[in-house]
């Protein structure tokens, strides 16, 4: 079974109910899925839990989908899951920020919330930000820290944190808009 192709393993699970085939597939791709989740979520525990959720989804869906390449299908399934998670997280952060600091998330179209953007490109866009802005964005949006907690963690004062977040968010959105459509 170790030498079986991905699609042979999928078939062994779907047609013959051989769960060990699925286990082998997960072993084969576990590091890629958790790595991708880390790239999006930037947090070890969140990435680990997301990986398990993805594999649970895959278990339920793998037999009902026309799959030409398991690797490609797993990539898109994993990526979509992480983007959904990211969108929920970013939206929640923006909601909380709006409540605690009404002027922080502006409502004009020019400064619309990040949750509306093409978040699949977030890791690429984040890599293009300056260090301070990227650090604040990661801690605030992805790790869910408050302004004060971000200030404590980074050593920046509160005013700087807000400024890095505000500018980082604007730059991030500009980068995201320039990313190519799929």
């Amino acid at each position, binding site marked *: 079974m170790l030498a079986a192709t991905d699609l042979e393993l999928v078939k062994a699970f779907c047609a013959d109910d051989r*769960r060990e085939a699925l286990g082998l597939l997960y*072993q084969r791709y*576990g*590091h890629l899925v*958790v790595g991708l989740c880390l790239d999006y979520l930037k947090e070890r525990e969140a990435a680990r839990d997301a990986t398990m959720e993805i594999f649970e989804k895959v278990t339920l869906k793998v037999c*009902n989908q026309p799959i030409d390449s*398991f690797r490609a299908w797993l990539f898109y399934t994993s990526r979509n899951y992480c983007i959904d998670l990211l969108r929920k997280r970013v939206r929640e952060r923006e909601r909380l920020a709006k409540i605690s600091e009404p002027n922080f998330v502006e409502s004009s179209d020019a400064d619309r919330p990040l*949750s509306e953007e093409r978040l699949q490109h977030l890791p690429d866009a984040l890599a293009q930000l300056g260090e301070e802005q990227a650090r604040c964005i990661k801690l605030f949006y992805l790790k869910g820290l408050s302004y004060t907690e971000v200030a404590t963690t980074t050593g920046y004062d509160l005013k700087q944190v807000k400024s890095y977040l505000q500018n980082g968010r604007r730059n991030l959105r500009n980068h995201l808009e320039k990313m190519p459509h799929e």
Partner: protein
Amino acid sequence: MAVETYVIILKKCPMSEPAGNDRRDWIRNKKPGAGADEFARMAARGREELGSEGEASELLSELDGMLAKRFGPQANETGATAGAEKVAKQQTPAKVSSLRPWYAAAAAILLLLAAGYWWTTQTPAFNPEAVYAEAFSPYANELSGRSMGTPATMDSMNATLSAALLAYDRRDYGTAADSFAVYLRLAPAAAPQLYYGISLLADEQPTAALNALRPLQSDPDYGDPARWYAALAELRTGEIVAARNRLSAIANDATSLFTTKARNLLNTLPNTTK
């Protein structure tokens, strides 16, 4: 060295595309080659979020353990890779080797029996949200590209519907639900009503989703998906009996597109009177 690794990958996993770095390389934070695909590239960048090889190896070991627990012990037996095994070996120094072989065999049998007993007596706690998350996938967008009326008179309405469908396709369900609501006020119809209900459901508004989906239950075109997503909404609101009843009806309906899904989901629901 790179060539050797590549050959090993091909021998062990012939279907794994050569674009991917293997597990050991990932643990070592070794960058994938120029021909790497998006999956390998993103995974390698994600690896940088971790520190040492030990941390990466430990994370994969944790995953192995969780996979073995959830999907069966085969995940560990058949697929454990060298990096993960190394950590396991380091954590449990060779105490077994000091036992005589028959003691070791007896201990292994007892361990297996205990594990088997534990495994068969485990009743995992039922988590409706987790079950919902496993079962939910968005209904295919069948409306984009269709003309919804005379362009001259319905441009504004069509723009609203297009915005809703675009958000739906982007999985931005909150925005989609808002746009569908605007559109439905202008032009109530079964199809957008269905997508409205699904968007509400995915946007964590299951009660509102139920209200949107209930009127569609006997719709000749959209009744089938509406019943399925209503069952998922009931699951999310904790109405397990109602969800079970609805899923049973779907599971027994040979014409439904959701028969298999409903049967699978029914198997995960607890027997409850609530």
